[in-house]
């Protein structure tokens, strides 16, 4: 059981570190479009690692039973739906920016 706790804790710690990195990146990057890139890290790695940790914990903590498998399946479904919808939402928001005429920040402008 201690092995499970260590693995789950490690997964969630790395996942939360990704969340922190994404927040820092959103502050440090220069414009709307480049800030979407670290925001995308939350959608894939952050969610995958934290939800993966939770799913393992839900499945193995207290023995594998039908109830624990159902909880595991629900958490996996969360990840699946986020993986389908979040790129679509990111695309919608960047497309809206382009249509509104916001020019991307480029390096050459500064030099």
């Amino acid at each position, binding site marked *: 059981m201690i092995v499970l706790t260590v693995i789950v804790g490690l997964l969630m710690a790395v996942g939360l570190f*990704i969340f922190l*990195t*994404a927040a*820092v*990146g959103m502050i*440090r*990057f*220069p*414009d709307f*479009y*480049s800030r*979407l*890139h*670290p925001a*995308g*890290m939350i*959608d*894939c*790695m952050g969610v*995958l690692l934290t939800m993966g940790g939770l799913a393992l914990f839900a499945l193995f903590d207290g023995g594998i039973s039908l*109830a624990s498998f*159902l909880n595991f*399946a*629900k958490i996996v*479904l969360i990840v699946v739906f986020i*993986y*389908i919808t*979040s*790129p*679509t939402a*990111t*695309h919608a928001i*960047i*497309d809206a920016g*382009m249509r509104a005429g916001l020019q*991307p*920040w*480029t*390096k050459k402008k*500064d030099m």
Partner: protein
Amino acid sequence: MSDKNEKNRSVSVDKDERRLKPIPFAITFLVMFALWLVLSGKFDAFHMGLGVISCLIVAAMSSDLLITNTTFSTIPGLWGRFLMYFPWLLWQIVLSNIHVLKLVYSRDPLTRINPQMVYFKSRLKNDMALVTFANSITLTPGTITVALSVYGDYAVHAIDDTTAGGLPGDMETKSGHIFGE
């Protein structure tokens, strides 16, 4: 019966479109019912009966939305190839996450990044292959699909030269391979 026919005529000209197709209906029902069982978690007759009724209604109304193609022999191979593709995609996501992470924590991110638009034309033809490729690009940090046309013209926003140089790359070949291209 005559009432039903009149309704059909007024709603759509093509009767074949309105007719319930058995195989898409069955697949939709099974997917809906599996989801119902997972989300409800109650396996007594009352709750499963409610599930069967609701899933029948939903499947009757929307089976043509979930399953749009008419050939079913390709579906198992398609899902098999997709499951082969997904671990590779996850590995790419891990690699590019580490790349963006380094950029975020670099001493001076404004000199390290070089945001740019990349335009390229894909050789993929299948709609689903194009969408899968576009979603894969967006899921990988460092590249976001801005626009995609039905002819395969992509506009991608990339955060620096490394991620921009990786396009279209292996991802196009592999996501095309899922759909047999």
